[in-house]
């Protein structure tokens, strides 16, 4: 899951000459089955970073199965019919048996009060035994072991609202290993150890959400801000959904969304593009093409008044304010990005100066556009952490006063230029990292249809005027687009 709160992701852009230099090093190609590759040649060190961007996220979780995209991401590390097993054939039969018994158990449960308790107990016992049997064939964590032993670093994956991403880096002479491992896990995933991994995923939710005041507050915010759109569910899913996820249901999910046309790969490092193309055809060519999946059709209806939600916690006060804003591809997005930096980018930003430094009422006051993600209309987020002896109410008022000023008068030219300069320099700094490039180029390709947007976005930023900033502040940062989530002390003192 990637919902960074304190680290704000900047929008991107760069100077034109950097782009033309850089463009020469970038190759893009599409396999006949629809899978797209973007390759950046950076020969300065014999290493390479790979990033698989699958255009499926928690917004695509089926009904009653929130957390499925995330669950599948975990399963993608379980191996293939040959990697991760001691006996592929026997294991296959054992996994089928697990599902057969689980189906029977669910059938019995569906009888409700007429269900036989004895039969339920019996089936539960049989299911446990079947799971243990299937697990007995597993060579645990073999997929990870092979990669780590080969010098793979940064091996991980994340599931966001919009996308699921898989990534690591290798010494560049071992790039073929990545092709083998990555293609096989998406060609032939085996959903082994599904029900143990389900417990792990449940633990992840306990760690990130249930045991963290900040996590709980984010969950409260989005579940109230969005009444219809699936941005209302955290990528990890709801506890009861997770506890009922089935391997049986992960199969159609995988078939729908892990089609080659829905996958974009970024590779950056000391590689030969011609060889990458040949390896891609050999290893990923066999993935059968499939139709592109349905997008989310649910559109969040207009909000007709401020919404407020609280969570009780003994922790110190926190507040999140989310304003409904359009998707990241909307023409107003560059102006919203600039607005966000004016408010909280760096030490000269309005909120830092006024709330943290001068009035000293906040420990932190930050903003973030495109929250929780950018593919669909989301939120412009304001995050407030009051200083000791200062209330949430006082902080909320101060934040509104700053926003109102931006709505009343255009921002001065010096401030606007400063923000644009920062965006430009930020992009140049990003070019220095293989893993950063491998991650960003596919994301831009998917969002805008062209990785060059990573660089040409600066032109859109340059066109933003003070009037634009004022206009988007007036249009979007309004009371009836607002949802406020904050903590309150438990009634009757600490629990």
């Amino acid at each position, binding site marked *: 899951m990637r919902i960074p709160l304190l680290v704000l992701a900047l929008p991107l852009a760069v100077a034109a000459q950097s782009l033309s230099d850089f463009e020469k090093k970038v190759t893009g190609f599409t396999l006949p089955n629809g899978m797209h590759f973007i390759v950046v040649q950076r020969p*300065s060190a*014999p290493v390479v970073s790979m990033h698989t961007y699958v255009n499926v996220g928690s917004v695509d979780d089926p009904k009653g199965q929130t957390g499925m995209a995330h669950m599948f991401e975990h399963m993608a*590390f379980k191996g*293939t*019919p*040959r*990697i991760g097993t001691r006996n592929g054939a026997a294991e*296959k039969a054992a996994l*089928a048996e697990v599902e*057969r018994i689980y189906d029977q158990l669910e059938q019995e449960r569906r009888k409700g009060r007429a269900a036989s308790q004895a039969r339920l107990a019996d089936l539960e016992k049989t299911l446990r035994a079947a799971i243990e049997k299937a*697990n007995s064939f597993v060579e*645990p*964590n073999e997929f990870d*072991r092979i990669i*780590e*032993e080969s*010098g793979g670093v940064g091996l991980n994956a994340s599931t966001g609202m919009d996308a699921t991403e898989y990534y690591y*880096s290798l010494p*560049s002479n071992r790039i*073929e290993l990545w092709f*083998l491992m990555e293609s*096989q896990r998406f*060609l032939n995933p*085996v*959903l082994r150890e599904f029900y*143990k991994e389900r417990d*792990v995923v*449940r*633990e*992840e939710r*306990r*760690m990130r959400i*249930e*045991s963290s005041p900040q996590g709980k507050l984010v969950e409260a915010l989005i579940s109230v801000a969005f009444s219809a759109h699936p941005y209302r569910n955290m990528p990890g899913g709801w506890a009861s959904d997770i506890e009922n996820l089935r391997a*049986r249901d992960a*199969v159609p999910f*995988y*078939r729908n969304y892990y089609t080659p046309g829905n996958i974009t790969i970024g590779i950056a490092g*000391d590689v030969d593009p011609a060889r990458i193309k040949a390896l891609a055809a050999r*290893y990923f060519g066999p993935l*059968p093409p499939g139709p592109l999946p349905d997008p989310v059709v649910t559109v969040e209806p207009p909000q007709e008044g401020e919404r407020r939600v609280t969570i009780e*916690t*003994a*922790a110190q006060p926190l507040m999140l304010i989310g304003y409904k804003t359009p998707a990241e591809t909307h023409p107003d997005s560059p102006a919203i990005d600039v607005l966000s930096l004016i408010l909280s980018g*760096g*030490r*000269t930003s309005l909120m830092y100066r006024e709330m943290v*430094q001068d009035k000293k009422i906040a*420990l932190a006051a930050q903003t973030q556009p495109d929250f929780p993600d950018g593919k669909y209309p989301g939120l412009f987020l304001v995050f407030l952490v009051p200083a*000791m002896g200062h209330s949430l109410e006082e902080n909320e008022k101060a934040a509104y006063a700053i926003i109102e000023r931006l709505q009343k008068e255009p921002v001065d030219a010096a401030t606007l230029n*400063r923000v644009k*300069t*920062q965006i430009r*320099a*930020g992009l140049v*700094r990003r070019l*220095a990292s293989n893993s950063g490039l491998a991650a960003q180029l596919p994301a831009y390709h998917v969002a805008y249809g062209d990785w060059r947007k990573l660089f040409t976005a600066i032109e859109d930023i340059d066109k933003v005027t003070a009037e634009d900033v004022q206009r988007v502040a007036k249009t979007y940062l309004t009371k009836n687009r607002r949802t406020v989530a904050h903590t309150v002390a438990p009634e009757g*003192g*600490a*629990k």
Partner: protein
Amino acid sequence: MLTSVCLAQAPAARQATPAMPMPAGLKYPPLKPVVIPEPAVVKLSNGMRVYLLENHELPLVSGVALVRTGNLFDPADKRGLADMTGTVMRSGGAKSKSGEQIDLELENIAASVESSIGETSGSVSFSSLRENAGRVLELMRDIMQDPEFRADKVDLAKRQYRGAISRRNDEASDIAGREFASIVYGRDNPYGWQIEYEHIDRIRREDLQAFHQRYFFPANVMLAVYGDFDTAAMKQQLEKIFGEWKAQQPPVPPFPKPPDAFSPGVYLAVKPDVTQSFLQLGHWGGTLRDPDYPALEVAANILGSGFSSRLVNRVRTQLGYAYNVGAAWGANYNHRGLFQISGSTKSATTVETLQVIREEVEKMRALEVTPRELETAKQTILNGFVFNFDSPSKTLSRLLQYEYHGYPKDFLFQYQKAVAAVTRADVLRVAKQYWSPDKLTILAVGNPKEFGKPLNTLGPVRAIDLTIPEPPRETKATPDSLKQGAALRERMREAMGSLAKLSAVRDLSRSVEMAVAGGPAPGMKIRQRTLLLRPNILRQEQELPFGKVIVYSDGQTGWLSAPQGMQPMSPPVLEQVRGEMFRTLPWLLSEEGLQANLVGPGAIEISSAAGAARLEIDDLSGLPKRMIYSAPGASAAPDARIVETFSDWRDVGGIQLPFAITVEQGGKKFGDMTVSELRINSDLKAEELAKKP
């Protein structure tokens, strides 16, 4: 209904796939040789050492000045001073420009200068587009050489600090990491102590100025610059910018060493509002210099680094107990780090998870690892070695760190060679030698009400008090505070039993073992048997290294018997005995006629002619969690205070009594008392207690 979850055979097209090699069957070309850049090293006329490394890939220049200082030099009463100095150097501006002016100038050119002071070093770093490098270096110099520490920014930093202190118990994972370090390093030294409101309140602008002056001088600075410049021109430019800085100071002394002793055991910090427990296990780590460091890295890798380690395999993959579990052999450059196993699991499986982790550590000490495990761990380190050189700036910063800490330039290559030579026997040997089961300390942060098995399954449990001490202030009794104090005392009485049950305690006999941690005789163990008969008779027998000591008193008079002979009780000892009687928990809470005054949130003070004691309630259980009182005869200064922290509560004849007590004096740990036997109303006779040896 689908009968198989093995997807390989589902769509027909996929069966036609040509056979793919297995990973082991792949042949790789040799890795291209790594080009390791050689930085230019120069000394400026003022003694400052400079390291320069050109790189023209991007039009950027960046760098860092490393300064020999650190928060290990914080004074005990002004903890946080080093860190605050690092913060306000930058925010408080230089003589020439205010912090805000510098902010504006830097951000206008998308550059940055930041300063900070950590545990064993301070740093001032910068980053700039090529064309602005000269100007940014000048600003960096001003911040380093002439910081103004403007008062409003000192005030801001202090407020930020207080805010951070007030929030330090909000996230359970933060608590676990912090408290574990405090347990192992101890709370009385800069490695393990905590910064409290009182320390921040004491820090003044002059303190920051003095701290800066002592440590920021050219001979104490190493400056590394990296990026798009010409080395010869940069040398000249740096001489011009920094050459006039002539400050001198005596060489900085070595850092204090962490103490050797700590109190291993099982610790609990209660955090009621979580569904997971955050766990830490471990003890001392080592240093990078240790010849066994490479073998320990391999051993820790097999135990718990990466997705294919034993801990991930067992705790996460097989049991599904945790999302997050792992181990690290903590090695620092020049002082011992922390050997640390961390994880988090749902409250109900807290104890099981800890047991499994302990078993896995034991297995590492009992049997050699498999050849394949050894190979995987070594190959992971050796094949990933090239990532140490994937950017030239890594080479530069490594060189700087090695020089700063006095390590050989080729340390990393020595390490590589040593890892390649590690054997299974080495792994077993270092696991046996360095991972010590009797020192293995366990910390659980979570909600013990939800633990499946009680934590004391693992051993006697010591409570960690997370209360954030308020700055000291006056407390006066008002009708209201007395009323609230009485209510709080009533809650404690109910939690321990009831007023009736506590009042009915006529006598109490208790055997304890005290492991002395501090004071004049650290490491000493004292066995103590105490017999108390209400209202005022006490007999205490102690086994000391030099013999047996017996103390008897009836509250008015008494005697003391030691191997040297008998003597009447002196008035100070008598006063001590009276205090002890007064503070005996069932009596302190049930004695008639004593007032309980509310003196803070969840804290009451009960006083009589025999003394005064502050009791703090554990909000979850209602039991007293700490008792604080002044050592008799000592001044009322805070450092003379004795703090007893109670845990391991058990039922004794219908009332709850603590079986583990941690004693601190003047903020330093004095010792741990473990009760081996505790009885009430066993019909003690005054004559027997008075019997002379």
